């Protein structure tokens, strides 16, 4: 099937305004008759639930955490982009649009990206009004800094905790709606199924993580804002509870999964220290404003302390390879460059999988106190984890799985191919193409939640009668039985291996074969190993306790079971995409000096996969991408 994103046409700068006028509205007094379910309370879900509640819709919001404030958006550090052009350095909506399309390696839809760039400025205003304490100068004006893939300073920030502050803004707006009763919040609930009636999304089935009860909820529309799937690699910068479960369950009910092979490996994370490690910790990209990446030029220097290596014996490889962007090269490029140095046996630290991020030049230039003010909390976090003081010696960093550009396929209205199912934020695939630029995830989450969905959901709801299908429909009962059946099955296997052991094994398969560099051979290897591991899981997993109480083993078992299915689709997508673009790097497709080579003639499309059954081939649907406003070009940061 050829998919249509239903993007508005005409001059791009007018598309969103024109589209908003063309869409239908719901009369204010009718809004309360519609019930909308929102899964996830991060930036996208929290902002959507709060905004829809304010408009008067009857909203029910769900999160697996104990409080809506703890969604993983909270961990975003560096900042949020907007095209304000306050520094007078040449920024504009067009430039943010262009940088995002180019940063994504020309694999995103123009209209969606334009809208994102356009509403980016509203987001900053909105957050300021909520009391988000952005960094300001002594005169009181908003301060900005630079991020990778941009030559302007357009990133607004709140120390190294921008995600926390933006999320608390959305959370507080949400709490205000909970107080007035327009939003009902269900915490410690995990969505385990999407209820589809006659091809239309009409509700969800969740597990109450405290009582273990399986509960059903009906809605006139369902919004998934459940984040990304990078824990498929086991070790990632995601929170422990982040999973593909909500989106994968929707995929199993017919929603198409788009571009799953576009995975972002973040260049600046603290290197892995041991086998028992449960997660990797990000060091914000903003550090590359003042930190310089280097490795020793000579292999024999790798074991020496950094201070003992002479300036001339250091290879500032990003500055050498990409003189115009230097240390602010985009993430995919910076990650691959780090891997390249380590593969060349010039890595540093335990296992030699690390590169230096050195602040000495900046400390000499602006002083330690200024560096402390900019990144104090990151240096402190680094010290707690590694026991090293990064003011006196360079940080050691290495790339780690961080963000999923792929996600459920949505049209311009953020609606999936299943009518009534909307997908926002990291959970959808829409704006970042094959590589997301730094400080753009916060921008997308809030754009979708505050400014896109309140408009586009009205257009859908205006066309349906509220409350036509409720939870007494037989599909709900069927879904509850399926979900209960899976829990029973997981509890009954009583095998020999723990859930974490399976998750670790899957992570290893994925990282080694479908990680930063992929080849036909490695992908086929993964496609042999994943089904075997999945089979073993269903024979040999051990889950203790009972299903009718808190049982984190059971929760994790469900998540790993979904990763074991989803990882296969991710790998198949990577195998299908015979080109290198953004975060997807196929070793067969590179230039002599190791740069990615795209194949625009054959792969300028969105790959949307339809689930056909666990052991059946998924079906590929294509949405061709058209570029009328930017010229497809080789992406160069040299």
């Amino acid at each position, binding site marked *: 099937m050829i998919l249509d994103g239903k993007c508005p046409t005409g001059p791009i700068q007018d598309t969103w305004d024109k589209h908003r006028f063309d869409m239908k509205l719901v009369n204010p007094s009718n809004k309360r008759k519609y019930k909308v379910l929102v899964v996830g309370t991060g930036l996208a879900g929290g902002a959507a639930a*709060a905004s829809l509640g*304010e408009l008067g819709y009857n909203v029910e919001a769900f999160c697996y*955490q*104990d*409080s809506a*404030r*703890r969604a*993983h958006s*909270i*961990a975003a550090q560096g900042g949020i982009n907007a095209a*304000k052009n306050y520094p007078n350095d040449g920024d504009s909506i067009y430039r943010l649009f262009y940088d995002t399309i180019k940063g994504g390696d020309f694999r995103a839809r123009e209209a969606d990206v334009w809208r994102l760039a356009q509403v980016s400025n*509203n987001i900053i*205003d*909105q*957050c*300021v*009004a*909520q*009391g988000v*304490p*952005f*960094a*300001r100068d*002594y*005169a*009181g004006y*908003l301060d900005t800094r630079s991020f990778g893939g941009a030559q302007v300073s357009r990133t607004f920030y*709140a*120390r190294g*905790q921008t995600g*926390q*502050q933006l999320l*608390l803004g959305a959370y*507080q*707006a949400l*709490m*205000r709606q909970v*107080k007035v009763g327009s939003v009902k919040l269900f*915490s410690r609930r995990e969505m385990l199924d999407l209820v589809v009636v006659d091809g239309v999304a009409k509700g969800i089935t969740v597990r109450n993580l405290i009582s273990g009860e399986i509960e059903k909820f009906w809605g006139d529309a369902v919004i998934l804002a459940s984040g990304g799937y990078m824990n498929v690699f086991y070790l990632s910068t995601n*929170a*422990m*509870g982040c999973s593909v479960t909500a989106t994968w369950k929707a995929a199993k009910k017919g929603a198409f999964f788009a571009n799953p092979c576009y995975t972002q490996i973040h260049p600046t994370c603290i290197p892995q220290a*041991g086998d*028992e*490690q*449960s*997660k990797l910790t990000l060091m914000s990209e903003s550090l590359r404003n003042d930190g310089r990446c280097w490795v020793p030029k000579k292999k024999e220097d790798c074991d020496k302390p950094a201070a003992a290596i002479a300036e001339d014996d250091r290879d500032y490889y990003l500055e050498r390879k990409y003189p115009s962007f230097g240390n602010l090269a985009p993430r995919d490029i910076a990650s691959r460059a780090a891997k390249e140095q380590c593969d060349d046996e010039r890595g540093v630290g335990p296992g030699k999988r690390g590169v230096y991020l050195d602040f000495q030049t900046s400390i000499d230039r602006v002083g330690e106190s200024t560096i402390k003010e900019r990144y104090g909390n990151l240096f*402190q*976090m680094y010290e*707690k*984890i590694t*026991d090293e003081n990064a003011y006196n010696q360079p940080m050691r960093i290495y790339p780690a799985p961080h963000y999923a550009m792929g996600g459920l396929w949505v049209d311009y209205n953020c609606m999936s191919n299943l009518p009534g199912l909307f997908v926002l934020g990291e959970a959808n695939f829409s704006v970042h193409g094959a590589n997301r630029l730094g400080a753009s995830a916060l921008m997308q989450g809030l754009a979708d939640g*505050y400014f896109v969905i*309140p408009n586009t959901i009205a257009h859908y709801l205006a066309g349906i009668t509220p409350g036509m299908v409720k939870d007494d429909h037989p599909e709900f009962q069927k879904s509850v039985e399926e979900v209960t059946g899976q829990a029973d099955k997981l509890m009954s296997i009583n095998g020999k291996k723990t859930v*974490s052991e399976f998750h670790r094994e899957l992570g290893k398969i994925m990282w080694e074969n479908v990680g930063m560099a992929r080849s036909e051979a490695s992908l086929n290897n993964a496609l042999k190993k994943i089904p075997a591991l999945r089979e073993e899981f269903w024979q040999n997993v051990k889950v*203790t*306790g009972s299903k009718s*109480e*808190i049982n984190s*083993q059971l929760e994790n078992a469900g998540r790993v079971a979904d990763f074991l299915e989803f990882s296969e689709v991710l790998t198949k997508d990577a195998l299908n995409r015979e080109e290198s673009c953004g975060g997807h790097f196929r070793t067969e497709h590179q230039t002599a000096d190791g740069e990615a080579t795209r194949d625009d003639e054959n792969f300028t499309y969105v790959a949307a996969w339809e689930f056909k059954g666990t052991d059946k081939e998924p079906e590929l649907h294509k949405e061709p991408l058209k570029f009328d406003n930017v010229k497809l070009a080789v992406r160069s940061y040299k």
Partner: protein
Amino acid sequence: MNLILHVWRQKGPNEKGRLDQYEAKNVSPDASFLEMLDEVNEGLIKSDIEPIEFDHDCREGICGTCSQVINGIPHGPDKLVTTCQLHMRKFKDGDHIYIEPWRSKAFPIIKDLMVDRNALDRIIQSYGYTSTHTGGIADGNAILIPKVEADEAMDAAECIGCGACVAACPNASAMLFTSTKVSQMALLPQGKAEAALRVKAMVEQMDSEGFGNCTNHYECQAACPKGINVSFISRMNREMMKAMPK
């Protein structure tokens, strides 16, 4: 290193709890405290013992989910960290470690080391916001906020809502938590309009949840993983006095 753990086990909110003893063997000093517990749990599962339930999520010290009293101190012996950022190099081979949940009437125990902290959400619901709604907002630079005020608001806003302040306080007071939001909003021009209404509503909610009062022990500041200063409690009290006649 090898350690002896004494862990609070409690089946449910109304069950009786007890300290059970477990061994943690061959623990790496580079492991985090929760990774050490993960390994202990893996061993328990294999011996058919129900693993220890504890709250955790981001494991980088920002989500505020993890919540363990370690050797009598919320988040353990290291300064300015959450439990998940506490590393085993802070302990010695052969140490006995006592692990308990947050203790407060307002935080009922759910199971083992997990407690219910929704009381903190209800304090925010009571007025921990500006009554703005999405859209129709003036430019972010329309109201200037000098750096000094913006920075102080940010100092308050750093609160991660973990509840260590409550767990550390002999009175189980939530004054530090509540005062951070009151102060952040009172310091910013956007929050000033509702400052009086806000502080009254939030303090009233705090009291009705069963949190105790502040008697200046400053244990909250000592336990706070973000190092939030008790001066915000003074600011909240001043805001309360200003609000009284209104």
